[in-house]
């Protein structure tokens, strides 16, 4: 893992990026009021300066792009793009492994396909950062990562290699095979608790083994427990280094997730959460953020009570929310958070709140707000350009910049 990150740092300072200036009639910085006639300068992949055109001079030699509306590159708080491929054939579906109920050791970057067409598809609408990875459908399906949508190799594009552990509660956690656990909600939780307790004990053994012996001799490695990739991942969860992303819809299952968190003290992020509005007081009290299902999600099965107003209701209750593309098994193979936020903006969220739910609020929820989510000096030079209100169905995304690299300039 460390070597991977080190590799990233070497590669990082913006591969093909030149110096870029983006000028917008309105620039939604998401860090204060929108700028009228604003300019953003990007140098070596980072925002060098931002301000009104009257005070920010575009240096000679900068490639200049102009648009009616400029926003930060959009952040998809949770999708499965790059895992659930465009063709939806067995060969390109890597979001779900069903051989075991609990597999937190499945690393996302071993599966992410940056060249899948859907990565380019969402980028074309201004999405520059995605939190993606193993999907719903198993009790613990694996890890997620956070990646830029440049569509190169995963190591060049990655922000966070191990972002969260993806779990599912409710019907989605049930085994598809008769007689194979978990077959019920209670069994699923029993399995999960047993595994987390194992991880607690594993962690204790590791700590005991890590203590330097009193006589200053070399640490006795033989006292370490046998390596378990699964438990290593869960130990990171127990230490609060990696949150658990629980895909869940029914109110009763949301409360179950809160109960588990109280027992094991891990960081919890609720995802989907169709009935979150029913238990919003409990969610608020627990201080747990919610990545709300796509606004246009289908209301079938456990999602039958979902509402287009959920993001708004939770936001008003003071719960941190972000909007996601989620997971789609069929058509559309991916949703686009720009469109989901637009419909949320028509259903209770203000324009600013809806845009925040796919920029700065999503970045904060994912813990990457120091790099992306707003246009501020020192942050990544990720921008999206539009020829009108970005949420209007008839507007176009006219440009996408990632770390100073102009990815596209065609109206989309």
């Amino acid at each position, binding site marked *: 893992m460390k070597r991977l990150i080190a590799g990233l740092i070497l590669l990082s300072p913006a591969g093909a990026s030149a110096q870029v200036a983006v000028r917008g009639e309105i620039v939604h910085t998401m860090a204060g009021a929108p700028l009228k006639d604003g300019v953003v300068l990007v140098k070596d992949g980072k925002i060098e300066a931002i301000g009104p055109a009257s005070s920010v001079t575009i240096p000679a030699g900068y490639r200049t792009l102009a648009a009616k509306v400029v926003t930060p590159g959009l952040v998809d708080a949770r999708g499965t793009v790059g895992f659930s*491929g*465009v*063709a*939806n*054939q067995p060969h390109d579906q890597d979001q779900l492994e069903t051989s075991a109920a609990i597999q937190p050791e499945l690393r996302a970057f071993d599966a992410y396909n940056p060249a899948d*067409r*859907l990565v380019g*598809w*969402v980028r074309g609408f201004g999405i520059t950062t995605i939190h993606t990875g193993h999907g719903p459908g198993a009790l613990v399906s694996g890890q997620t990562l956070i990646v830029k949508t440049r569509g190169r190799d995963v190591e060049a594009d990655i922000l966070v290699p191990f972002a969260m552990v993806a779990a599912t509660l409710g019907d989605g956690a049930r085994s598809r095979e008769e007689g194979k656990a978990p077959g019920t909600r209670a069994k699923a939780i029993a399995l999960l608790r047993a595994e987390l307790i194992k991880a607690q004990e594993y962690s204790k053994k590791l700590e005991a083994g890590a203590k330097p012996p009193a006589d200053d001799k070399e640490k006795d490695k033989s006292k370490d427990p046998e390596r378990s990739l699964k438990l290593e991942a869960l130990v990171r969860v127990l230490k609060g280094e990696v949150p658990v992303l629980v895909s869940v819809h029914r109110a009763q299952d949301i409360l179950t997730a809160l109960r588990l968190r109280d027992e094991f003290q891990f960081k919890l992020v609720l995802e989907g959460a169709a*009935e979150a*509005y*029913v238990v919003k007081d409990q969610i608020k009290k627990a201080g747990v953020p919610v990545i709300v299902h796509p606004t*246009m999600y*289908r*209301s*079938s099965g456990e999602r*039958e*009570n*979902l*509402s*287009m*107003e959920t993001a708004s209701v939770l936001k008003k209750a003071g719960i941190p929310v972000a909007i996601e593309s989620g997971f*789609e098994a*069929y*058509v*559309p*193979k*991916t*949703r*686009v958070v720009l*469109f989901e936020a*637009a*419909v949320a*903006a*028509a*259903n209770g969220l203000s324009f600013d709140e809806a845009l925040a739910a796919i920029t700065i609020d999503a970045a904060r929820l994912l813990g990457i707000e120091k790099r992306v989510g707003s246009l501020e000096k020192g942050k990544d030079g990720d921008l999206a350009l539009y020829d009108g209100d970005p*949420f*209007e*169905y*008839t*507007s*176009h995304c006219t440009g996408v910049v990632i770390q100073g690299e102009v990815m596209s300039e065609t109206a989309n």
Partner: protein
Amino acid sequence: MRHFLRAVALLLASPLLAGAQDQPHVFAGRVIPIAGPEIPNGVVVIERGKIVAVGPEGTTKVPSGAIRHDLSGKVLMPGLVDTHSHIGDVAGADASAPIQPDVRVIDAINLRHAGFQKAQAGGLTTVNIMPGSGHLLSGQTLYVKLREGKVSLEDLVVTDANGMTGGIKMANGTNSRRKAPFPGTRAKSAALVREQFVKAQEYRKKIKDSAGDTKKAPARDLGLEALVEVLDGKRVVHHHTHRHDDVLTVLRLSKEFGFRVVIHHVSDAWMVADQIAAAKVPCSIIFVDSPGGKLETLDLSWKNGAALEKAGALVGIHTDDYITDSRLFLRSAGLAVRAGMSREKALEAVTLAGARMLSLDQRVGSLEAGKDADLVVLSGDPLSYKTHVLETWVEGLKVFDRGDPKDRLYATGGYGASHDQSPFAHLDGDEEEGR
């Protein structure tokens, strides 16, 4: 009001219902008639379930005593026409055979499926409810008006200009390729379809030759009877198709057997737009938020609307509900415009073009005197994300009112909004009962 009307309609039947429709109404606002240019300050007058006048305020005659609906700042357009929907939890043919023209969806629709209320909340007033695409031919479709006060499906049915209450659903490409007795290849798919149409031709000839003599007539065959209606041009084929070569196969079969066809989805339409236009085959297209999901839709393009418009084809748009949500039907027209279709044609695609595809354009699809009083009141421009459907009217009765909390629930979703069983109003007539 709506629930009161429903109760009245249900308990006392037509005389009082007709009474409610008798009262003339005048709607005054920005009018998008589809049949002509937008009227910034327009009126639509309705009476007895029909439109009696459409025109500019001031110069359009309004009957005295008309109930006035002041819609300043709002928009009035015709009720939306969806040429392809699966509301009602509908299923058609079973797995026993790939071609089942005897199967009717009217025998399979759950009238109390929440999809009906959601469709009303989306401004839909006329819908073609279809069986699925997992067969070469999955059954007879049903044309409905989303009227209030429904007790049975018969209360919703609408008859087209050819005396039909539905078309027939066919499909090619990969969905209908399955294990035997289903076809395994595209060529086999076409062969099976041709074989069946040849049978229908022979059946039709036998009937004709019997010249009304029941002793000489062939034994009744429900499937062949439906196919004869297709061969006679009375029953239109609604044909699911995606890939460019499959589209051309449909055109070829339509030409060989002389059946009328509307092609649906048509993901690759942009590749074969000229051929479609030359064959004068109407296209009902879909807008989903990303391509793929299956191999034959990898090249789905939002430019289909613009490409077909440019080629001169008749273009409609459908929801394919549940594939896209009826409540967001107008959004699809917005995406069509985003990708280059004209605003006029995109709005026509969700109204009059669809009506023409269902041969119902003499009754619905535009705001014109003499047509059914099916209309939608919008809070703003039809193509803006900010706009909500405020009211939906069918044949002079309000069937959806966003101001009514019960109706609003269907518009936004929420607890109980997707429950399949809406109130048993016809049993107890009480709007307060639980669901």
